[in-house]
C-alpha cells in the first residue's frame, strides 16, 4: 500500500497519507516469520503428546523409562507391535479390530441411510406437526445418555441380548439427530426447481428423493459417514455396558483391559496398540479433512 501511495503523481489535491518507515520488526516479512515461529511452536506442543506416543511405541522396554522425553527412539524396536497384537487371554487384536470394523461399518450405514431418508422428510415434505417434531429432534441432542441407558439396559437384558450387537445397532435405525440436522441444512440449499420439474413429470415424493435429491447428497453423506465412523470407533460407554465377553470386545474396550495397570507391564506394547487404534481415525481425518472442517463449521457439529 505504502509503495503505491508514494508513487502517486505529485500535485493531487487529495491529502496524501504519509506513513513513517516501519521498524524492521513490523515489516511484512518479519511479521510473517514471527507468525510462523509462534504458531509453529504452539502447534508442536499441541502435537507433542501424540508424536511422543507414536515414538514411544517404537522404543525398547528400557529406553521407554530412560529416554522418556524423546520423540525419535535411539533404538528402533518394532517388536512392540507383534507383542501387543497378541492381545490377552488368548484373544489377539485381530478379533478386536474385526469387531470394531463390523460395528463401525454397519452402524454407520444404518445411521447415515436412515438419517438421509428422515432429513428428506423434514426438508421437503410439508406435513402437520413437522415443526414440532423438528424441535423435539433438536432437543434430543441435549439429553444425557444416562437417562436413556438404564431402562434400555433392563429391556435388552430381559430380551437376552446382552453380549450381542443388537443393543448397539438397533437404536441407530432412526438415524442420528446430528446427521439428520446436517443433511436437512444441505437439502435446503438444493434449489426446489428440480423437485418441481420432476413432480410435473409425475414423480412421487419417493421418486424425487431417489432420483433428484439422493444423487446430489453425496458430500453431505460423506461428511456424516466420516463422523459416524469415528464416533462409533471411539464409542466406549455403551459397548462397556453390553459387551462383557472378550471375544466381542471392540478395540476401545480391549485397550482398556489391555492397559490395566494392575495386570499389564509391557508399556511398549500398550503404546503400540494405543497408537495403532488411532491410525484409522487419522487416515480418515487426513484424507477427508475438507469435509470434516466444512461439516463442523457449517452445522456446529461437535468433534
Amino acid at each position, binding site marked *: 500500500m505504502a509503495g503505491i501511495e508514494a508513487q502517486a503523481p505529485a500535485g493531487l489535491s487529495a491529502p496524501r497519507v504519509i506513513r513513517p518507515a516501519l521498524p524492521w520488526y513490523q515489516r511484512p516479512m518479519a511479521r510473517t516469520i514471527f507468525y510462523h515461529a509462534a504458531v509453529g511452536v504452539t502447534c508442536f506442543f499441541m502435537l507433542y*503428546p501424540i508424536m511422543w506416543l507414536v515414538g514411544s511405541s517404537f522404543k525398547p522396554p528400557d529406553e521407554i523409562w530412560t529416554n522418556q522425553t524423546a520423540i525419535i527412539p535411539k533404538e528402533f524396536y518394532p517388536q512392540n507391535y507383534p507383542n501387543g497384537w497378541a492381545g490377552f487371554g488368548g484373544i489377539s487384536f485381530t478379533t478386536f479390530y474385526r469387531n470394531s470394523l463390523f460395528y463401525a461399518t454397519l452402524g454407520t450405514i444404518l445411521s447415515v441411510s436412515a438419517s438421509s431418508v428422515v432429513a428428506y422428510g423434514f426438508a421437503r415434505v410439508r406435513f402437520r406437526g413437522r415443526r414440532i417434531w423438528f424441535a423435539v429432534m433438536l432437543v434430543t441432542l441435549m439429553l444425557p445418555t444416562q437417562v436413556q441407558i438404564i431402562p434400555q439396559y433392563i429391556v435388552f437384558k430381559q430380551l437376552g441380548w446382552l453380549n450381542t450387537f443388537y443393543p448397539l445397532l438397533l437404536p441407530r435405525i432412526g438415524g442420528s439427530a446430528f446427521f439428520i440436522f446436517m443433511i436437512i441444512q444441505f437439502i435446503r440449499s438444493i434449489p426446489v426447481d428440480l423437485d418441481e420439474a420432476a413432480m410435473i413429470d409425475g414423480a412421487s415424493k419417493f421418486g424425487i428423493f431417489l432420483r433428484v435429491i439422493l444423487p446430489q447428497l453425496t458430500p453431505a453423506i460423506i461428511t456424516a459417514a466420516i463422523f459416524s465412523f469415528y464416533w462409533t470407533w471411539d464409542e466406549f460407554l455403551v459397548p462397556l455396558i453390553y459387551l462383557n465377553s472378550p471375544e466381542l470386545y471392540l478395540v476401545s474396550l480391549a485397550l482398556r483391559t489391555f492397559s490395566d495397570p494392575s495386570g499389564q507391564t509391557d508399556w511398549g506394547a500398550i503404546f503400540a496398540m494405543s497408537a495403532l487404534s488411532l491410525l484409522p481415525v487419522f487416515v480418515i*481425518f487426513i484424507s477427508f479433512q475438507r469435509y470434516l472442517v466444512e461439516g463442523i463449521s457449517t452445522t456446529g457439529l461437535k468433534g
Partner: protein
Amino acid sequence: MGVLPMAAATLTKGKRRRRSNFGQDNLVGYLFISPWLIAFFLFTFIPISVSLILSFTDYNVLANSGDFIGLDNFQRMFFEDRRYWRSVNATVKYVVFSVPLRLVFALAVAMLLNTYRRGVGVYRAAFYAPSIIGGSIAVAVMWREIFGNDGLVNFTLNLLGIEGPNWLGRPETAIWTLIILAAWQFGSPMLIFLAGLKNIPKHLYESAEIDGANSLQRFLRITLPMLTPIIFFNLIMQLISGFMVFTQAFIVTQGRPLDTTLFYALYVYRRAFEQNEMGYASAMAWVMLMVIALLTAFVFRSSSYWVHYEADEGS
C-alpha cells in the same frame, strides 16, 4: 448457523403466514420421518419415562424387583449420600474450569488462524488433531502415563531439578490432569469460531481503523460483540458435554483419589452397573437431566442481555 439458532428460530416462527398447499402431504411426510419417530419413541421417549418411574423405586436389576419407595432415593441423594455431593463437587469444578479454558483457547487460536497466510490449513489440522482423537481410550491411556508417578511430566521436571508431585494420586492435582486434557481438545469450538470470524464484515474493521481504534478496542468493540451468537452456541454445547464427561475419568483416574474425580456420569454408571442400584441411579440421572435443562434455559434467557444479533438478520 448452528443447531441452537435454528432451534430458536423454529420455536419462535410459530405465527408465520400460511404457506400454499404445495407439497403438503401428511402421510408421505410421516412415512419419511417414521424411522426417526419409531426410534425416538422406542429408545428415547419410553426409556426416559420409565427412568422417571424407576427413580421412585428401589429397583435392582439382579433381583429384577423393585418397590415403590416414594421420594426416598432423592432424600438419600441429597441428605445422606456424601459421595453424591463429592461427585457434584467434582463435576462442577471440572465444568467451571474446563469450559472457559477450552473456549478461551479456541477463540485465541481461531483468531491466530483467521488470516490468509500460506500454511494455515496445516496449522488448522494440527490444532484440531487432538480433538479428533479426544474421546478415545488410547488418549486416556496415554494421559495416565504422561501424568504417572514416573511419567513424562515428572521425568521432564526431574531434568530441570524439580521433584514432581504424584499428579494422579493427590486430591489437589488429580482433577487438573483431566481439566488440562479437556483444554487440550479445543478443536471443534475453534473451527466454529473460525467460521464466525470469517463472517464478520471487513468494513467494520476498516472504519474502526480510520477512527483510530487500536487492536484491543477493535477486539472488544467489534470481534467480541459480533461473535456473541457463536460464543453462546459454543458455551451451551461445551457445558452439556462437560457435565456428561465420563470416559476420561473412568480410565485416567477411576474417580480417585478420595472421589475428587468421581464425575457425575461416572457415579451414575457405578451405581447402576456396578452396584446394580438402578432405581437410585435413575433418580440421579433425572436430577442431572433437570439441572442441564435448567442451566440451558438459564443461558438461553440470559442471552438477550449479552448476545448480539444483527438487526437485519431476520429478513
